[in-house]
């Protein structure tokens, strides 16, 4: 049997080592961070069924509309504290979303105002629509739920 030739590492081998090292460190770094640098995601459900899921930033480009049970909700990006273009409510700069317009009878979804944090939601019972924020930076100081 012919013996294997004696292999000598070359500069290319070193490059492969560096690439593997960079890749491994990158994966480890991403997993350690647990994806906490992701932005907020809006999840829209109608009658308990998820119908839309998108990064909050996408609302800046264009508002979205949801129609169910004969009612239409228009959802847009907003800053916390902002109520409408006619109101001069101070904003603290936290970005979120709100229901800008709805033809539902209760208008509770519009009156909920702007939600900005993971776990918060806007509910329209007449249209049976729930819009909820998920993800975002993990903050142990955030509340998990609100009673009331």
């Amino acid at each position, binding site marked *: 049997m012919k013996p294997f030739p004696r292999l000598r590492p070359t500069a290319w081998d070193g490059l492969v080592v560096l690439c593997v090292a960079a890749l491994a460190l990158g994966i480890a770094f991403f997993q350690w961070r647990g994806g906490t640098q992701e932005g907020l995601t809006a999840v829209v459900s109608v009658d308990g069924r998820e119908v839309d899921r998108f990064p909050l930033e996408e609302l800046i480009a264009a508002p979205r509309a949801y129609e169910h049970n004969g009612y239409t909700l228009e959802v847009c990006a907003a800053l916390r504290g902002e109520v409408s273009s006619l109101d001069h409510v101070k904003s603290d700069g936290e970005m979120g979303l709100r229901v800008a317009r709805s033809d539902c009878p209760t208008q509770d979804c519009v009156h909920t105002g702007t939600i900005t944090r993971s776990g918060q939601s806007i509910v329209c019972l007449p249209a049976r629509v*729930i819009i909820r924020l998920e993800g975002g930076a993990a903050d142990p100081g955030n*509340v998990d739920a*609100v009673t009331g």
Partner: protein
Amino acid sequence: MMRRLLLCVLPALLLLSGCAAPVDPDEARESIQVIAMDTAMLITTYGERSPAAAYACEDVIRDLEKQLSRTDPDSAVSRLNAAGTLELGELDEELIPILSAAEAYRRETDGAFDITIAPVVAAWGFAGGEEYRVPGEAELQELLERVDGSAVRVEDRTVTLGPGQAIDLGGIAKGYAAGKLTQIFNEYEVPRALAELGGNVLAWGDRPDGTPWRVGVQDPAHPDDRNALVGVLELVDSFAVTSGSYQRYFQQDGKTYHHIIDPATGRPADSGLTSVTVVAGSGAGGAMCDAYSTALFVMGEEKALDFWRSQQGGALFSLVLVTEDGRVVVADKTGQFNFVPEEGSGYTYETVS
């Protein structure tokens, strides 16, 4: 030399990338949203069986709604209200325990919680489907004569109401449902979960990071801002239920009328409180917290605190009262939770014992 380096470094790096985020079976998570009982519900379960547990929760809630809804004409409650009497079928089995609990809470609260307030609530338009209006005094007095929970009879499997009576379980059904969820969490070995059923929160176990669940108490002065809180409850294995005058109301002739009706007067309770939050351990029963939060709102601060002090057999529940004059009163002897006041809320905070 280089080969030795490769032999050492590469396995170490592979180990590093592969083991950086170990998957804990307790971290598996399922989150569902349910619209039922005239409110939106969000249930998040953890654990290996979290999807099955979450959907079992939805089944239980849907099943309860079928029996207890006042707006579904086929529900047991609607059939009972329409006929004045009902022989319970196999699918109506939840009605007996919930009626029994409601009667116990009526007696304990000296009538401040009473499910036979239904005709009065409907007259104000708070039962759903009707226009809001202010009933006249004569109409209220006539309706109040029908309000008496002790007249509801349960014999074997037959429920009978008093003359002209109707029941509304809206003040107890969501809490009762939250209590049923604890059975599912036990059955499916759910290590931690968070269930929001309208104003009812069930914090089961602790957070994935091992700290207590953080449940905010809504600031009644800013009901349209979900970030506006009077404080945060840090809870493990607990129910927290809030009743507030800001939750449903209408305005007429410059006056505000809210939905928590005082069974003694037939009018929105004018008790000096804007919200009552009742907190209890998950073994105490969500129905109790739900019923007490309504009853103690009707009672007002002084009577509510007397009621809290009179608990038998050790402290069962705790209170967070928000008053019209800008105070937050925390009454807790259990030591089972921590209340963190919200900085800059503008309220003054008191602790009573």
